[in-house]
């Protein structure tokens, strides 16, 4: 692209109103051309003001959106610990409660495979213990069986394990395995019982892509869920989240996310 051609596209470029190929060509030109690009600056300097376009109606987003974002960010923090992305590390004097929780998960992510198995066993024991305290032996056995199927799925080559931890103000936790085909085997406890048309939906989130619904389930008063989802694309580091939805068939989480975890493969 010549300098003159780039200048001709300057106004559309600063507004992002070019085809992708032209955007890229102008970008490359700006990065390499030694000539002055004052035209881009004088036009581009105006563009941020457009964000205050007067007829934009100010609308408050639904409260659940903030919960979703915070849950995804917390899960992302845990992923960084698993080595998926280097996190900027500086000392922080007073970590907040959610942050401490996230960091605890980060440490889990750094544990070796054997340690993770030990952690899983501890969680399993804890889950069973709580249930026994509630004198629900049948439920405890169901949960143990669910955990056994998760562990057997996790033991397959190419599987990932997921420690599911509750989001703020929730208790739902458990473990899951993501099988090589991307289906998720879940064992959860302390899920509030579903009422009416309510379901729990399982979501798989990859990178910054939108959550993919992979299957819903109902929970009775004992709070136990054992469930296997549909297969989906779930590379290492995929996030598994469980949300409480008003009815089946949500294509994006509508209800609150109650529990999340990050897939970790034994090799990482």
């Amino acid at each position, binding site marked *: 692209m010549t300098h003159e051609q780039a200048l001709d596209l300057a*106004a559309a470029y600063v507004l*992002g109103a070019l085809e992708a190929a032209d955007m890229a060509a102008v970008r490359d030109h700006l990065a390499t051309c030694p000539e002055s690009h004052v035209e881009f600056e004088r036009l581009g*300097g105006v563009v*941020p003001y457009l964000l205050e376009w007067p007829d934009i109606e100010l609308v408050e987003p639904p409260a659940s959106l*903030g919960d979703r974002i915070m849950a995804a960010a917390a899960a992302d923090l845990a992923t960084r610990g698993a080595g998926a992305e280097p996190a900027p590390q500086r000392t922080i004097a007073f970590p907040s409660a959610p942050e401490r929780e996230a960091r605890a998960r980060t440490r889990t992510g750094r544990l070796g495979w054997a340690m993770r198995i030990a952690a899983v066993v501890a969680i399993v024991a804890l889950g069973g213990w709580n249930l026994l305290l509630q004198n629900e032996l049948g439920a405890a056995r169901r949960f143990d069986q669910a955990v056994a199927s998760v562990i057997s799925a996790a033991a397959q080559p190419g599987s990932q394990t997921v420690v599911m931890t509750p989001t703020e103000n929730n208790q739902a936790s458990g473990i899951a395995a993501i099988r090589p085909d991307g289906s998720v085997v879940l064992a959860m406890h302390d899920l509030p019982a579903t009422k009416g048309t309510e379901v729990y939906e399982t979501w798989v989130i990859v990178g910054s892509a939108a959550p993919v619904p992979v299957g819903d389930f109902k929970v009775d008063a004992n709070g136990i869920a054992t469930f296997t989802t549909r297969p989906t694309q779930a590379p290492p580091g995929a996030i598994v989240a469980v949300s409480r939805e008003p009815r089946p068939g949500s294509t994006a989480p509508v209800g609150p996310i109650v529990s999340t975890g990050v897939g970790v493969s034994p090799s990482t």
Partner: protein
Amino acid sequence: MNDGSGRVSGRVASPADDADRAVLLRVADGQLDALQDLYDTYRTMAYSIALRITADAPLAEDVVQDAFLGAWRNAARYVEGKGSVKTWLLSIVHHRAVDAVRRRRPTVELPEREDVPPSSLTLPDIWHEVAGNLDREEIAVALGSLSDVQREAIELAYFGGLTQQEIAARTGTPLGTVKSRIRLGLLAMRRTLVGDDGSDDPGSERSSP
């Protein structure tokens, strides 16, 4: 060229800008409560812009989530002096929203999916003349200096996510005319907002009718 501190006509960073920068530093540090602060401050503007562009509430929510997660992951890449945190953040929202509506349109050539929003946003690199203090009344006045067709062309480009070719087709206007409407419209706004059009060239003030 601008020196990067980039203030025009005595525009200075407001105390709110400084507070935002402090919050963003903590976001870069991986502090979730800082992200919550940032979200609380800008969720309404972010969602409103996303909704304006997508005209689709669930999609707008996805866009806002995507943008805040992008900010969460890339806060360390924010460069002071190239615009306020507010501008940076809302630009990510804008960029994601336009991306989302273009993806929804099957006929449009899709840009490559870029996972790191700020690096794909080369635009803020040339936006550093604005230090903050975006003001709705000011822009309303500035927009008043535009002709209807200039305003329409800029609006279709910036909020409709249309390319200049698509604007030409949509409005039944030659491409060259669309180009000059956008350019002259932006320059007219600049004169009102900044006090000059950044040019020695006094000509070409009129758009084609």
